[in-house]
């Protein structure tokens, strides 16, 4: 097996006596889409910040390509991994184009404006915001802002030859259903091109649909780390989330109630998500 891009070994993040992340060991490899799920307060974001290098493990270690991530310069890391956070607000009237370029400028300060423009243009096109590049960022809708942040992350990693890691920290939480699938479809494209995706998700169906592996976190500890079909059993979901679910092998009736259902993605069902001829997802994403 290939060497992991990012690896946590017994990583613990403690604030005073409270362990937000408790002796977590995991590996993220090239080409993987990993979903991180768990109840609120399970330590998902803290784990993501540990793996991204923004927090230091109080004990244990986090390695980036075999080196201690704390010893890896922030600038170098920025060329290899990008993070889309939860609804990041921007106070000043940056244009969308300028905001998307932020990711590019710090990570690749040596680039010419034309190269930056190309990365920014590609990223905006990928998230379907080409027409909004000149708008003032804070005037966009919440969903558009979030997609622009995804574009910023894509621009940051654009054209990097080595495998890159895309972190999505509940990045789809305030998107509508269509754009949730668009963003996760882009992330899956990233994984299929040899990159790595770690997505914190609340929607178990999305996790089940997109991820190669699902890591279920509870109380700062990993409950399971396995392919969705193995990980998201009704028993585990009952134990961790305290709700009863029924896993279905086929999609519900077209007019059925919208309920928290768990799909199994072994034989990814073509009808879910619904095929849309114009969408990026059906164009490049879903392996139909």
């Amino acid at each position: 097996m290939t060497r992991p891009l990012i690896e946590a070994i017994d990583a613990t993040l403690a604030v005073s006596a409270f362990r937000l992340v408790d002796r977590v060991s995991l590996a993220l490899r090239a080409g993987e889409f990993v979903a991180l799920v768990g109840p609120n307060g399970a330590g998902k974001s803290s784990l993501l910040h540990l793996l991204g290098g923004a927090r230091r493990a109080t004990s244990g270690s986090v390695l980036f390509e075999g080196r201690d991530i704390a010893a890896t310069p922030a600038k170098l890391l920025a060329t290899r991994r990008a993070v889309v956070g939860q609804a990041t607000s921007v106070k000043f009237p940056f244009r969308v184009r300028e905001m998307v370029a932020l990711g590019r400028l710090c990570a690749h300060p040596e680039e010419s404006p034309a190269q930056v423009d190309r990365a920014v243009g590609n990223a905006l096109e990928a998230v379907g915001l080409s027409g909004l590049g000149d708008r003032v960022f804070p005037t966009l809708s919440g969903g558009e802002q979030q997609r622009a942040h995804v574009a910023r992350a894509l621009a940051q990693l654009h054209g990097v030859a080595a495998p890159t890691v895309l972190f999505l920290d509940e990045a789809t939480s305030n998107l509508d259903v269509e754009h949730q699938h668009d963003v996760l479809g882009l992330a899956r494209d990233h994984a299929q091109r040899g990159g790595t995706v770690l997505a914190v998700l609340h929607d178990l169906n999305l996790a089940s649909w997109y991820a190669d592996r699902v890591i279920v976190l509870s109380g700062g500890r990993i409950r399971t780390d396995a392919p969705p079909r193995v990980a998201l059993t009704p028993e585990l979901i009952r134990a961790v989330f305290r709700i009863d679910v029924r896993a279905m092998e086929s999609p519900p009736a077209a007019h059925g109630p919208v309920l928290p259902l768990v799909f199994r993605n072994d034989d990814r069902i073509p009808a879910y998500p619904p095929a849309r001829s114009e969408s990026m997802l059906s164009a490049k994403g879903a392996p139909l």
Partner: protein
Amino acid sequence: MSSVDGRLDPRADDLPRLAAILVGAAILAVLAALCLGSISFSVWELFTSLRELSRGESESATFQTQLLWGLRAPRVALALLVGAGLALSGAALQGLFRNPLADPGLLGVSGGAALAAAAAIATAGGGVLSSVVGPFAGPFAVPFAAFSGALLATGAAWLLARPQSGDGASRLILAGVAINAIAFAGVGLITFLVDDAQLRGLAFWNLGGLGGATWQVVGVTALFVSAASVPLCSVASGLDALQLGEDGAFYAGTPAPRLRRVVVVAAALAVGASIAAAGAIGFIGLLVPHGLRTLGVSRHRVLLPLSALAGGALLVVADLVARTVATPREIPVGVLTALCGAPFFAFLLHRRGRLGGPK
């Protein structure tokens, strides 16, 4: 790629134009400030006297030349420097705190400077301070005290906040507020204790003025303002990235703690030097970067130099008005900037609210 993808900034044409307008305005402001005053000159006379000066005939220089280059020119130069330092620091601090209402006084700088200056004025002639400050005694005792007070207050705010982790920026603001409150209470106490003559000195200090400008003061201020502007401009793209939050900035390649140290130290130097040279001049540091942002300048790489330019020009004009509008008396320039700045600020807020811009 669609047709609108051609350029990073659709106002790339507008930015050089804005910069050119600001440079032009600054040159006009400087010329006007040199020519107009208790004795007015024409631009032609300005150049003749400059030629006279450059021939090195200092003993034989006319009274006009002495007035122009000995008194008025250093005053204009000081206004440029102080305005530039305040506006530059304001822009950088607003970026650092991600808050368009941040002001150079926020770090406790103005409070510390005012308290130290007040203490120096109150103890002037007492010998205690002058023995401590040694070579800076005499005419430089008060500015030196103000500068030291500004740096000490910033240092105290920094230690109080210890912004090493988490949301350091907001703790730093709160610490600055606390330091300022203590310092101004101290100023109030000193004001209550001193005699009438010292009270006048204190009032001048709190209202700000450029009357004390000499080439010596200009030189020292230029040293500190330029020493601050180099690191500030070098972290411009980091300040952009910081708008994504501290974690966001790190993920984009700029660790926030180093950025914060650079900005706080540089801003304290520039603002401390400005206050030491010209007293507390309000609103320039708040208003100038804010105004430029509403004109569409957001990236700090452009915003910081343009703020310095516009701030310098604005203070030159404000000082010109302050010393000419009620001759032979002088309005304290700090009063004037607040008097003009506050309504302009209110107008900007009103306009932005109407356009439904960002909160």
